[in-house]
């Protein structure tokens, strides 16, 4: 049986009196992407910081690649990669210098920084100062920096936040490739589309608690309501819409009735989204 790369049990953290993370537990297996989905302030980044050792958990614990969580452990950090939402690159240095410097910190003697830059589409800008890079280019460089040590575990904090759709798609492809090559990935995001597309499983986090954790499909099946939306022409010629829930007693009969009606114009299936499920579970929207 495969051992989880990350195993977290009852992890807690507080900022003074505010309990930001409340006894959360989860596991991530090699090659798996776990989407940590929640609005701003839900506790996603705090959880990530506690896992990578930037914050000391006040309760609970667990392990990452066999190393205990919450310790100042350089041996663990040699095996993880982190990409923050904040673009914390050395702007006075070139893209290549940034990567080579980070490689040196991992003790990598001959890093293949150029290959990494080419992989993220920055090969022709390797010698340019990062200060002259666009937001999307900086984010691609951030991602390549997180990959420099070929990490077994990746922590990605809002990796596509505020990016144009083309750059975001490039970054999602890179993340998927890393997972396919065996990395366990914790992806924090408040973008439900991203979580839906990328994640093998999704954890909904709200006010420091995981309120649901499963694959997107299972969550939709479990919490989503089956329904169809029909468009009808009324007697007065006006077009109206009707939502027919299929899980109610009357629903299937009403659908059959309308299906044979000459007034029926269109039928659309109504699929639950992660956002609708999140709202259903927490009463909060994901954005904001």
């Amino acid at each position: 049986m495969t051992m989880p790369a990350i195993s977290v049990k009852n992890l807690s953290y507080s900022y003074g009196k505010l309990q930001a993370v409340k006894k959360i537990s989860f596991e991530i297996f090699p090659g798996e992407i776990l989407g940590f989905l929640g609005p701003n302030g839900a506790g996603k980044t705090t959880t990530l910081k506690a896992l990578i050792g930037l914050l000391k958990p006040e309760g609970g614990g667990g392990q990452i690649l066999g190393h205990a969580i919450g310790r100042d452990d350089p041996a663990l950090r040699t095996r993880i990669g982190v990409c923050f939402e904040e673009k914390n690159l050395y702007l006075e240095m070139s893209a290549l210098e940034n990567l080579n410097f980070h490689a040196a910190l991992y003790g990598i003697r001959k890093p293949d920084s150029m290959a990494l830059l080419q992989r993220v589409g920055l090969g022709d800008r390797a010698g340019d100062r990062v200060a002259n890079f666009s937001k999307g280019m900086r984010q691609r460089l951030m991602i390549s920096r997180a990959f420099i040590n070929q990490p077994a575990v990746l922590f990605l904090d809002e990796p596509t936040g505020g990016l144009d759709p083309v750059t975001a798609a490039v970054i999602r492809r890179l993340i998927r490739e890393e997972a396919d090559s065996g990395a366990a990935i914790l992806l924090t995001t408040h973008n439900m589309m991203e979580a839906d597309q990328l994640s093998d499983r999704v954890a909904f986090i709200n006010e420091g608690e995981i309120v649901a954790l499963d694959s997107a499909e299972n969550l939709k099946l479990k919490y989503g309501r089956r329904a169809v939306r029909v468009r009808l022409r009324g007697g007065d010629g006006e077009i109206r819409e009707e939502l027919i829930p299929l899980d109610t007693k009357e629903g299937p009969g009403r659908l059959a009735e309308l299906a044979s009606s000459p007034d029926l114009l269109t039928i659309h299936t109504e699929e639950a989204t992660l956002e609708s499920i999140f709202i259903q579970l927490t009463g909060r929207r994901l954005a904001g």
Partner: protein
Amino acid sequence: MNLKRIWSILRKDLLTGSRSTVFLFAVIMPLVLTFIFQVVFGTLFNPKPRLGIVDKGESAITASVREMEGIALTLIGDAGELKRKVEENDLDAGLVLPAGFDEAVRAGSKPLLQLYIGGESLASNRLIIAITALDQVRELEGAAAPVEVKTITLGEPGLPLSLRLVPLLVFYALVMAGVWIPAAGLVEEKEKGTLTALLVTPVRLSEVLAAKGILGFFFSVALAAATLLLNRAVGPQPLALLAVISVAAVLNCMIGLLMGVISKTAVAFFSLIKGAGIFLFAPVIFYLFPHWPQWIAKLFPLYWIIEPIWQVSVMGRPLGAVWPELAVALALSLALALLLPALSRRMKGA
């Protein structure tokens, strides 16, 4: 601590520092200030009289002038070259001592002594060289001085202002490099978020602090030494002075690291340096005003590094004479080093 990682950070800081105005400001300003003070108070425009001698017979006058600290002596091969150098103002004056000159003077004959004076030379330098030449000839002759000269010092006895400014200049070099470079470097890493990026790699916070401290130490020693050299205040024991400067640099770097650790932003750091500046600067004022009660200076931490530098460089004292001050400076550095880990812990999650 991993030395390779410390070296990597240090090298990165040197690379980014050379592209940073704040860093360059910290490195260049002490030298600029020294230059300005040299121009205003020092010897840049008041050089030693430059005397060239053509000596055909190994005269005792040449040997005697060579011993004089107040005259810059150049030996020239022939009279033609000497005249050219005086004409071109490469020398203030030129003296031609023919073969057998000393013997002729001692025998009581009156040999010809040619003294060329540069038209562009300073009047004070001409006077010094002329009197020196006459004195030397008289000494050679073995004659008694025709008059007795009584020297009366006017004004307050003490060191010239240019020397009393040395502690100020050295202080500035030490603080700009020793305090400023580690503190500004740390604050910049915090503000730009790059510190967090470092701390998720195998780098430990102590290694980041060590790299910043070493860089500050290196520049602090180099700039303080350069300042003393430029001010001709190295003193008779350069190695002892280097040891004293090193202790001073350590204390300054510790203060710099502490300031960097407790300042969250550049604005907070500037406020701190403004607030603490007078506290750091205070002992220097007592060297500018020696009639003030000097014991007050001892209340300030940087007195314990300025005083040994003053004693070794300006007063020429040996290292053994300043060990109590150095011990206090080292004790203060150690106390700050012990404070650092506790204060730096909260930097990690910021």
